[in-house]
């Protein structure tokens, strides 16, 4: 790709996890808004030489928000290396923790980012503090739910992050019936909060003129490849086949063996981005083009699945598809709704698991199995497909590790989406010296819809100026880096 000059940067982008900014660049006659991840950590390097059985807990520290997802994906890779099949009890326990993780993260996004972003559209500050002044009942329900979920995690797994759970071929401890009594109480309370979110979302947003308008806007469309796990065609978050569906709804890939992920996901490393830029490998790399862009997460998952297990979740899924005008759904604003559908799904699945007697009976670990030198684990983390891929030597120490996070995959999708706003942005900067408030709002909303978690995406690298502020800041700079204007 040709080199480019920096025209302006929105620096740094707030209300996303981790550090990133939007930079406007020119390359010849082309103008682009780029999403630039600026952190650097190096987990692929520090993994080398480690005992592979230590990886689940080590790698869980990639992210403090979706720590359990990393532990579970890592655990599946380790199980594969030792050739171990989990007992039903161990599998249910891991599934339970995974549903709690997705539920927790989704509710965090919905309450702190999603609802304020949409409900306060057009206002300068779109955060939870502002939402609190307008709709205190929604915010207090959000805060209460969050603390309830943390209680739940502490009860079930001892710690709220980076805690003990996965051992090769199982879990270190099973859950008891006594522990579940408390869980049921907490779940009931969480349930009522979600109903409140749903009502608010439905009445204030889905039925609003703004929502209808956003669904029509081309800038919010994403016609790339949806990727996600499915089990017998249904939505699956822990253990299924990797399915890819194109923008016409055709299944172009479905593989049960996780090792084949590398045939589907290609990765480009750009010198200007500490997040990788993955792409749909069979299409070849066409940077910023929907023709090779993959997107993952709630919206993509509902695109690849034919049905959503759970009575309420199933119904709500159908309603969403109807409003979206059929599948595949290609407007990123619908990510918010898809996230709500999945919270219902998670609660229904949690309820199903805790009523399953097999959760309390039998072994939690198995040692039987034939070991091999490589293992790949894939789970659906809250933000989408998460891959951990390890190779070991004969004494089971790691010789190679690769991690692809959902935010890394969506890094390309976000860049592709932003490129649709580039022309407008360039025009405004040229005439007024800065982007219009409306364009800034749109840029932010596009990024936030994907719910990027940059701590995750930069598991491999972490560099960054620690200049996070909670308000959105715009900096216009010329190609030499001189600051021309600051908002």
């Amino acid at each position, binding site marked *: 790709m040709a080199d480019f000059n920096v025209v302006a940067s929105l620096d740094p982008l707030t209300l996303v996890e981790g550090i990133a900014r939007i930079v406007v660049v020119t390359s010849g006659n082309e103008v682009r808004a780029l999403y630039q991840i600026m952190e650097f950590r190096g987990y692929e390097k520090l993994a080398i030489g480690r005992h592979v059985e230590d990886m689940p807990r080590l790698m869980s520290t990639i992210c*403090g928000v979706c720590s359990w997802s990393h532990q579970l994906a890592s655990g599946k890779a380790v199980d594969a290396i030792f050739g171990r099949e989990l007992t039903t009890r161990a599998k249910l326990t891991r599934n339970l923790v995974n549903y709690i993780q997705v539920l927790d993260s989704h509710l965090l996004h919905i309450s702190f980012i999603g609802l304020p972003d949409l409900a306060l559209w057009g206002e300068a500050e779109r955060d939870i503090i502002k939402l609190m002044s307008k709709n205190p009942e929604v915010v207090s329900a959000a805060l209460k739910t969050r603390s309830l979920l943390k209680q739940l995690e502490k009860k079930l797994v001892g710690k709220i992050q980076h805690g003990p759970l996965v051992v090769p071929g199982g879990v270190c401890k099973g859950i008891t019936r006594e522990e579940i009594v408390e869980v049921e109480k907490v779940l009931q309370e969480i349930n009522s909060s979600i109903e409140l979110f749903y009502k608010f979302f439905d009445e204030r947003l889905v039925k609003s003129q703004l929502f209808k308008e956003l669904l029509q806007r081309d800038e919010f469309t994403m016609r790339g490849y949806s990727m996600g796990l499915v089990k017998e065609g249904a939505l699956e978050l822990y253990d299924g086949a990797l399915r890819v569906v194109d923008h016409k709804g055709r299944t172009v890939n479905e593989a049960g063996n996780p090792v084949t992920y590398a045939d589907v996901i290609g990765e480009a490393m750009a010198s*200007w981005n500490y997040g990788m830029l993955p792409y749909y490998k069979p299409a070849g790399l066409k940077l910023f083009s929907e023709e090779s862009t993959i997107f993952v997460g709630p919206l993509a998952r509902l695109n690849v699945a034919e049905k959503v297990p759970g009575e309420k979740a199933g119904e709500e899924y159908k309603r969403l598809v109807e409003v979206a005008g059929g599948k595949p759904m290609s407007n990123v604003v619908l990510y918010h709704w898809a996230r709500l559908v999945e919270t219902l799904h998670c609660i229904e699945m949690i309820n199903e698991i805790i009523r399953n007697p097999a959760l309390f009976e039998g072994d939690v670990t198995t040692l039987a199995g034939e070991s091999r030198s490589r293992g790949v684990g894939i789970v659906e983390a809250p933000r989408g497909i998460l891959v951990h891929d390890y190779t070991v030597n004969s004494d*089971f120490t790691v010789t190679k590790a690769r991690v692809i996070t959902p935010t890394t995959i969506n890094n390309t999708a976000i860049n592709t989406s932003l490129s649709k706003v580039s022309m407008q942005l360039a025009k405004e900067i040229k005439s007024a010296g800065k982007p219009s408030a409306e364009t800034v709002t749109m840029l932010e909303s596009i990024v936030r819809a994907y719910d990027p978690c940059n701590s995750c995406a930069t598991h491999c690298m*972490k560099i*960054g100026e620690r200049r*996070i502020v909670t308000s959105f800041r715009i900096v216009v700079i010329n190609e030499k880096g001189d600051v021309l204007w600051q908002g």
Partner: protein
Amino acid sequence: MLKLAVIPGGICGGCDVALASLGEKLAEILKYYEIVYWPIAVDKKLSNLMNMNHIDVLIYMGAITTEEDAKLAKELSAKARVRVALGTCSVYGGIPGLNALYKPADIIKTISLLVDTKLESSALGLPQPVQHMAYTDVVEPEVLAPGCPPTDKVLDQLTEILLNYAKSGKLEARTMLLGDSESLCNNCPRNPKTTKIAMPGIKRLYEVKLDSNKCFLEQGVLCMGPATRAICTHPCIKFNYPCIGCGGPVEWGSDSGLSMISTLASVLLVDDEKKLLEPGLARELNKIRDVLGTFYKYTLRKSKAYALKNKAGGEG
């Protein structure tokens, strides 16, 4: 009102969550302190903080991974009257500190071998990385609050220190390492102090079904409890997982790996005098294929092992 600033370095977000989950204790702190900077919680600009003449308490989370991190940590800490290193990354380097022996270029090289394509641009750059450091490598904080993430015990003590400082303007000591000054092993629910531990050999975690009541060392499983400061109420051990040492060494300046190795020397194969002959012991110890990751999972950057290796030019 006193001024409180919370500065993130290279973080995962776990310490932010722990601090934000303080709830009522945080409310109590806020009766005396105004938060002048904490990116995830309040809308205050860093430029304002840079212009302030002094900060009363500065809390630093995460590790130092860039030149900017180091510069910011030094400049802001120079203005602070009380400096707090929060979390194991800040105090000891943490898990990302396992990269401390590598140069950033080596890390980038390893990663670049995993990808399919490389795209170059000279115009749009990124900040410069440095070799991984703890906050305590650039500043000497008054309060050291370890844990991954910091535990309730550590956060309770920190709250008390902050409240006392607000009322008296004084600290109890020049350097305070939070948690209790004893090893985690001392109060372990599995190991009453009266028991003499005998380790039958060494087993890796993939070789055993963990017994949920018996001391891990007596099962042959390495547990860092004897060499780890009592910063928690044993959540991992209660959940049937051996301690992996996130609390760091028992005392500030001591070395968790060396303490653990010395413990092993006194408990390993003690019931079997014949095996104590050197070859038997060596065979058992040789089962530990990853010495750094086993004994220094969270503390490599502050260890004697790091000091020696780094002096010798780092690890390839």
